[in-house]
């Protein structure tokens, strides 16, 4: 049985990731001053230009800082599972682009360190009543990252049935 998966939002990352269109975060680049933004922004917060183009961001970076989430966040807005498992959050520096905030796949702060190499992946942060996994982006320490082939074994869907 295959697991149905949905992205948490459209336009946040390439979906479904494939060999021809691998997983990337979808950012934007101001056509006037070159500022890179994530999530993609139509207006530039540096030069106030309203012209931008889509830019797929680097899928590797280094961990700039991190913390953990050891209690279930207020819900709403959080819509993860009732049975809470602590997770980590960090900022990953994508060289020459930006620092992006994301969940980290490693929940143990003792196994994280500032400066370590990280790689973009997806995690099922929530599961709907019908079993559909809701996917969001995350960064994994490079040595523990989930191979892309493993992600490709699941069957993405456009809408939950």
């Amino acid at each position: 049985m295959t697991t149905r998966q949905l992205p948490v939002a459209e336009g946040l990352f390439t979906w479904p990731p494939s060999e021809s269109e691998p997983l990337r975060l979808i950012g934007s680049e101001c056509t006037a001053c070159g500022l890179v933004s994530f999530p993609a922004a139509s207006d530039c917060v540096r030069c106030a230009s309203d012209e931008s183009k889509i830019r797929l961001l680097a899928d590797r970076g280094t961990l700039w800082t991190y913390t953990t989430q050891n209690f279930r966040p207020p819900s709403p807005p959080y819509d993860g599972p009732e049975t809470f498992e602590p997770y980590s959050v960090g900022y990953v520096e994508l060289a020459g682009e930006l620092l992006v905030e994301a969940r980290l796949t490693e929940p143990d702060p003792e196994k994280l360190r500032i400066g370590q190499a990280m790689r973009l992946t997806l995690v099922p942060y929530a599961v709907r009543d019908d079993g559909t996994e809701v996917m969001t982006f995350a960064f994994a320490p490079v040595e523990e990252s989930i191979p892309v082939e493993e992600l490709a074994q699941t069957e993405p869907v456009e809408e939950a049935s």
Partner: protein
Amino acid sequence: MTEAVIIGVGLHPFGRFPGKPAMDMGADAVRLALADAGVTWPQIQGGYVGSFEVANPDAIVGKLGLTGVPLRGVFNGCATAGTAVALAARAIETGEHDLTIAIGLDKHPRGAFAADPSVAGIPSWYGQTGLFLTTHFFGMKINRYMHDHGISHETLARVASKNFRNAAGNEKAWRRTPLTPEEVLASPVLNYPLRQYMYCGPDEGAAALVLCRADQAHKYTSTPVRIRSTSLRSRRLGAFEVQSPSFPVGEPVESPTVDASREAYERAGIGPEDVDVAQLQDTDAGSEIIHMAENGLCKDGEQERLIAEGATEIGGRLPVNTDGGLLGNGEPIGASGLRQIHEIVLQLRGTAGTRQIPGTPRVGYTHLYGAPGVSAVTILST
């Protein structure tokens, strides 16, 4: 330009007051401030009132007296009180009024602040996936700071322990049970490296200040406290700030605290070396440490030694958060910064009781910081 001075302060205790509306706490604080100043409500010519939970805090006129006074509502997150006092002072400085009031009141439900990210202009997925928590930012900022500047976990615990100890000596504080650094370090981690007893909590309370023209202060008090400067600054591009799904690479940009602090010192003609007592936003123990440096009161990394030496204790060289700060008082957002100024006024008058710092303090400093990356600084002197 006419200078504004504080002639009266009033504080409703901070904590939990089941069944008591925020508006009633606000009215109590105002009456205390009026009595302290020796004036009556009909004499107040204008004012500013801030609250997060109360949508129309200006309705407080219904409890104080329907005099037709222009009372304007203000809000800037955790820096709300900075705006209320700045505008109440500005109304005097510009000659609009001779006698004004700044009021703050709030009554928050228990637990971490919850809101939809849309209130901060951020897409829904940021909240759905568990990223929209200000506490993440505080954990991540101090984690990076500890890495860069050699601050230890023990120093975080010492700050929390100091503020709870100061609160124990403050009958209007909320968390009045002293905790040793060891007890703080034994509490569970909420957001690494920050633990349960290193965080302030949202609670309830109110505070008010009565201001007048400096040249009329003698009519009301022999101990006016001068408002030397106020400043409020928002985040600039490139600063590492709360509620940011991303921020640009490149040279680090300083926080709005640094910008507000520098502006306030410059406007006051007062330097960090002149500050005798400071109230710094201690949303968490790490914030107090970082804010010592961001407000120019020490260099990055010096906190490790200063705090070990007791420099920020009531009897130390630079007392910080003498009334227990946010850790000891909690944070009713609209009132929090006015509570800070209330404490500075008591310290400068020499009437802070068991919390009184030694000597003759002349200059007091207050600092607020919060979402969405905004900071307010007020510098006061005798």
